Structures are given as C-alpha cells and as structure tokens.
C-alpha cells in the first residue's frame, strides 16, 4: 500500500482528504504544517504528498524546496492542493518541483484524476458511458 502525506493546517481538509485517499487505497499520514511534514519525511519518505500552500510555521512552497534537497527527496510525487488558484502560483509551484496542482475546492474525481496524471494510481477500469 502506498503512503500519502497530507499536509494542511485545516483538520477538516485533512479529514476529507484522508477519506478520499483511503478510498483510493493509500495509507494516510497527516501533518499540519511544513515543519511537521519534514519530520515525517525524514523518518520515511512517502510515495505521495498532498500539499497545502498557506500554513503557519512553514508554508507548502518552503516545505517543497526543503524536501527536494533532502536525500531521497526527489522521490515523492508532490501534488499541491490550495486555494491559491492564480497562474503565477501554479507556475512557481511547478518550477519549485511540484508534480501536479489542485485548485480548491476539490473532490474525489479531481484527486483521482491528478494522481493518475502523475502515475500514483492506475487508470480505473473504463466504465461503460
């Protein structure tokens, strides 16, 4: 089972994301800011990170640049998941090493589509119509 680290300062968002990701067969670890998330990654690199941008202590963008410089830190697929929906933010995130980008609000279909996009989950069996 693949592991996904959910980094968001909102416990509600973490809970929703957990439910969706567990439905997609991920083992979920939660962190409420970038520093917290780095501690998790130092212990064991997750396969995936679902990452908020604006958080206290350390934001998602800074977490990402720290992560990518850690040994093995280029391994996890990082998918931003944020209310920052401006094209400038998206470009900055992608230049900073993110693999995909979700603009909140999100739902299960969006998470599944984006996770497929970066190869974290297989394409679903094509359903009729």
């Amino acid at each position, binding site marked *: 089972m693949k592991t996904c680290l959910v980094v968001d300062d909102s416990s509600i968002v973490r809970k929703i994301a957990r439910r969706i990701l567990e439905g997609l067969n991920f083992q979920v670890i939660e962190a409420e800011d970038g520093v917290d998330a780095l501690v998790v990654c130092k212990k064991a690199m997750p396969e995936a990170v679902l990452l908020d941008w604006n958080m206290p202590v350390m934001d998602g963008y800074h977490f990402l640049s720290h992560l990518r410089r850690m040994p093995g830190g280029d391994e996890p697929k990082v998918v931003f998941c944020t209310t920052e*929906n*401006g*094209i400038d933010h*998206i*470009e900055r995130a*992608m230049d900073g090493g993110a693999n*995909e*980008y*979700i*603009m909140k609000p*999100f*739902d299960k*279909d*969006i998470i599944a*589509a*984006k996770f*497929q*996009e970066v190869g974290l989950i297989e*394409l679903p069996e*094509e*359903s*009729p*119509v």
Partner: protein
Amino acid sequence: MTPPDYEYLRKLLKDHSGLDLSADKQYLIESRLLPLSRKCGLAGIGELVQKMKSGTPAIVAQVVEAMTTNETFFFRDKVPFDHFRDAIMPEMLKARAARKSIRIWCAAGSTGQEPYSLAMCLKEMSAALAGWRVEIIATDLSQEVLEKSKSGIYSQFEVQRGLPIQLLVKYFKQNGELWQINADIRAMVQHRQLNLLHDFSQLGAFDVVFCRNVLIYFDQDTKINIFGRLARTMEADGFLVLGAAETVVGLTDVFKPFPDKRGLYRPSGARATIAPAAMAMPKIAAMGR
C-alpha cells in the same frame, strides 16, 4: 430494478428526449440514476420511479438530464489520446507525407473537451507538422453545447479533470474562476451542428474519426447504419476511435479492430450491406423529424 420500472423509464426517456434504450441497458440507467436517487434521499430506482409517477416534474427533468447529458472531460479515458499520438499520427504523417493534410472529425464533440484535447496533442507535435494543414471538425446534435464549445470557456472544476496542469498553464488564460482555451487552439476546431441519424456525407472525407460514447444510445440497426455511412466517409487507411464500451464486433464488418490498440478500428474495405441500411432508414426518418 424491476422490469416494469425499466419499461416505465424507457418509455419516459423516449417520449422526453428521443433516447432509445434497448432492452439491455439496465446498467446504463443504474449508473446514471442511482447517484441521482441517492442525491434526492431515495433508497433506489424503485423509489425514484414512485416519485416520478406521483407527478414530480422536477424529478422527471433531472432524470432526463442525468440520462442524456454526456459528461465529458479533457483527455477522457486517456488511452485514445495515447493512441492518437503514438499510433494514429505517426502513421498519418507517413501516409499523408505527399499531400500534407489531415482531416479529423469529432462526431460527438459535445462541449469541446475532446476536439480541444486533440488540438493540444497536435500543438505538442507541431514540429513534425510544420507546413501541414490539419482540420478538426467538431459536430454535435445540440446547438447549445456547440456554443459552449466555441467559447472554449471552462470552470475550475472542468479544467482539473483529465487536463495535466502543464497544459492548463500553457494553453489557457485565466479569468477569475473561469479558464478560456487560447485563441490559436480554438481556431484549430471548426464547429457544425449535426445529427448522426442524418446524412453527413457533405462533411467530406476524413482520415481520423473520433466517435465515442454516442452510438451507445442508438438501437442496433441504427448503429449498423451509422457504421456503414462512417466507413463511406472515411479514407481507406483512416482510423476510427470508439468509446471504451463500444465495438463494431458482432455488428458490422466494414471496420476491423486495430491489433493491440483497444478502441481503435480501421475500414476493412468491405462494403456495407444494403439490408441493414435499408432497415434502419425509416427509423432515421422518423427520429429525425
């Protein structure tokens, strides 16, 4: 779902939308209407039918909408677009090297996600296509749907389903919560209103036809008839792309499956037999009016 409930829904859909479900489309009704019945707080399709029979027009409208709206997203099912890039286009680049032109038809273009996905694929391979003329014709039954397609404007939800973020950044302009696909991509797609039941030979000959998730709505004779007319409007070495749940196998021999590429077909060279077309013609006339 009980047989009487199925019959009731079949008749209602035919009366309200012309949608003609054959006797074996229970799964289609269930996949569309179970989510709707849950949304309405009902236990299942039985309760939904009860509610409709008790004369709730709002529910009837929602049922028709759920059954006829073909939800679509960019790069839907992904695989057909991989085939387009890795199998169809390389072969077309060779086969059409002399005349340097390719004509593509999206026969159920809907709100534009499919033709624009193809346009983006082509843009991504523009180096190989320098000096080529590539036409994409998107047709749909609904004028309203075509207008949306022409505008190229999509919600934040729509651009996040199937569209890689790199392509969003590259080919769309943001306007608040809405995203519009760039004018140069829009200009690659021509739109026409068209009912597949009617003659479409005036569109000319095509090298590639995407006809996905629309034939499923037609009865068997109509399908056979459409396949026959599709084959006639396609180049002998062209490609037909069908939806994941669709096939020509067992229906017609005018197309043959392309080896190892699911959903991909080529004209077989066989002529459509007259009988099925003739059988289907009266129905076409009846449904077209």
